[in-house]
């Protein structure tokens, strides 16, 4: 199968039902998407497929059509994405393990709703964070919403 990841085309040999998560992590050595549950219940494995947040642990790689963006594909060169900038400023991560998924979910949210309300954030940001970084996540999303670029 062919996968478009972060602007590059990869030709991969994998069984049809192999989840995208493990293709990315184990076959392509792209470690940004994390394994948290394997059943679509935590969001740690989130990537964007044509801009849409996708839980890769329950998505067969063979079924993916479109451009995949992982956290590695988010910053352009040394410049961080504004969501990452806001994350830095609010010191959001604790252990950090969930944050690739959280950041990508937030990027997608802001694409869809540039000025989200708290209710919008509650509805869309359903990824789990066992460190409980939610208050700072929320603050960072609001800040990113007010930022350029």
């Amino acid at each position: 199968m062919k996968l478009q990841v972060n602007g590059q085309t990869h030709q991969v040999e994998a069984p049809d039902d192999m989840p995208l998560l493990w293709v990315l992590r184990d076959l392509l050595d792209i470690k940004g998407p994390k394994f948290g549950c394997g059943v679509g219940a935590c969001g740690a494995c989130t990537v964007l497929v044509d801009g849409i947040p996708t839980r890769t642990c329950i998505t067969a790689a063979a079924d993916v059509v479109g451009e995949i963006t992982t956290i590695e594909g988010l910053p352009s060169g040394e410049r961080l994405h504004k969501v990452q900038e806001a994350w830095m400023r609010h010191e959001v991560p604790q252990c950090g393990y969930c944050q690739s998924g959280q950041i990508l979910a937030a990027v997608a949210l802001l694409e869809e709703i540039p000025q989200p309300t708290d209710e919008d954030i509650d509805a869309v940001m359903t990824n789990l964070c066992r460190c409980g970084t939610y208050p700072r996540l929320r603050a960072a999303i609001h800040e990113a919403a007010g930022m350029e670029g």
Partner: protein
Amino acid sequence: MGKIAKYTRRGFLGLGIAAAGGLAVGYYYYKKPYPNPLPDTLAEGDFSFTPYVIIGSDNAITIITPRAEMGQGIHTTLAALVAEELDVDMDQISAEHGPAAAAYYNSAMLREGAPFAFFDEGFVAEIARGALGVAGKFLALQVTGGSSASIDAFDKMREAGATARAVLVEVAAQRWGVSAESLTTARAEVVNPNGERLTYGALAADAATLTLPKPPALKDPSEWRILGKSQPRVEMREKITGAPIYGIDVQLPNMLYATVAMSPRFGAKAKHADEAAAMAVAGVLNVVEIATNTGHGFGIIASNTWAAFEGARALAPEWEAASYPEDTAGLKVLWAEALDRESSFTLGGEGDPEAAMQGAEVIEARYSLPYLAHTTMEPMNATAQFVDGKLTLWLGSQAPGLAAMVTADLLGIETDDVEVITTSLGGGFGRRVEADVPLYAAAIAAQTGGKPVKVTWSREEDIQHDTYRPMAEARLKAILKNGLPEALDYRVAAPSINKSLFGRTFPNLSAAGPDRSILDGSFDQPFSWPHSRFAAHQVDTDIPVGFWRSVGNSINGFVHESFLDELAFAGGKDPLEMRLAMMQDERHAPAREALKAVAEMAGWGQALPEGVGQGIAHTLSFGTWVAEVVQVDMRGGTVKLEKIWAAADPGMILDPGNFEAQITSGIIYGLSAAIGQEISFADGRVVQENFYDYDALRMAGVPPIEVALLENSPRMGGAGEPGTPPIAAALGNAIFAASGKRQRSLPFGNEIDFDID
């Protein structure tokens, strides 16, 4: 890197070492952690080292932070302690806790000779502290008690920085032919009053050969530039760019992938497994048996993790019966029987509650708490390679020394032949102290012909093979006098964590002495009972129990603080006023201040609409005093969390932003458990499998949380745990205030609905 250097009786010795990319010098080390901490005894006894400062000739400054970073900001805080005294800024340093620190940790623990020497309070304390995610020695002094004034990272790391600075200044003074006292330092440079400057890097090679007669004086806190202020986290950029820093991200040449299928009936072995079916899964390479002290089962080796998971499913092992009652109801019978028996031990207490209760009107209550799993966000994993009798482990570990010890024992090699490379941890909460993860990885690595193998547990395996927060049942009796608490009879049945931990980790040893974790958070609280008795009714099974964020305090914090609330209402008192009235001892002052602060923030005592209520609780744990208020709105028929306020006093706050984040994190962790988490048993095994039946709060369920930081306590306390213990009680008390329904059984969600999404 890193040769072991010797400490001389005259003072500190720097040692030049070869580091990757050039010369690194200024490798300073300190006395071992446990004996007398005072600097003036440094010449005594047996010395070892802990933190390091490495200064490159290019002025690159690396601070070794030999503690597991699992989100608690410990690398930043440890680095800040050194940077403060070294007079460098945080943007000039890098913090590292990689191979050198892990290797060092091993040798420091093992150097002392006989392994048994470690199984004293100091060693248990070390495990416990590691387990609790606290900042080295200084943030959890009360875990096992008795060591609260001992040497700590707070001193050690600052001394490391001060010593390095002093030798650098001394070398500069010699070069310029001036007195050291006339020189100042800033931003990694020594400054001559005449305007000349030398970088630390230019001085480092000479400084490394210098000895100091005595440790230099440390700065007074009033002179601090870095400590006491929020610092940017040193690893922040890695964590927002998805850098492969966790154990699960380890990638090595020729690496194999594996998972485990261990017996979910603890202590039981396999009866049957379909190895042929597992081998038939594409990508599965081998199935090996695992037999260790922590469990029996199988390792499934494959060409990728997913194939290993599929292989484990196909293997479908059947297991022997469990040694304990097969379901939660049956287990509860054991707990009830334990409460009916004589107590195992008592702690604290005073007066004669039994006599005091004669003929008085006794208030009774029973409380019930389930087992809990940790569910760190990163599932359990370890990578291992066993070549030529030497084992290398890549492990996100809270206790790398322990991992080395147990894996060496399993493979029949020396502990020195195990190298543990500590990765970042995707959450710890006490789970990553355990021996099982490295043991299974080592067992599998012994059968891969020398190839490295990354062993990743599925979430199901993780939840069903945890070392759980103990299930507990409590029976309480109390009487009032003039509406105030007069006598308390406090009994709690729970398993001993120490006994369980020793049983699975060092089966030849038995844990000595009472396990105070059964009663932590009750007998040790700042509350004056004229008569009280705190009794532990120990009830042990093969179900492994371990350190769960705040350990026994999370159990007794709930029971003790909920029951105080009951007594306040029984006596017609305001719960805050009653607590303050019973906290008149001078030593209770930080508790009073924390309670008053949180009450003021929350507007405690204001008239609230019918169906809206506030609950208050306070727990002193790990040396930090934390009062919390929860406000709930039940007018819609469900519990809606409106707001949480906390006032936390750890005595001294080194990094306010990080401390606040830790308290908040502890609150949310406890809140998730209080609302919905329960590990239950059926058929001799854990029922819950994944986040769909063992969930935690998401964004929508977490109300605004406001934390006030206080510094009234005379001693420094912890950050990672103390937010957790009061929250369940504060929530239960709020539900009572709003609805009149007393909550005595966790999780509350079993009986009432919460509006959390």
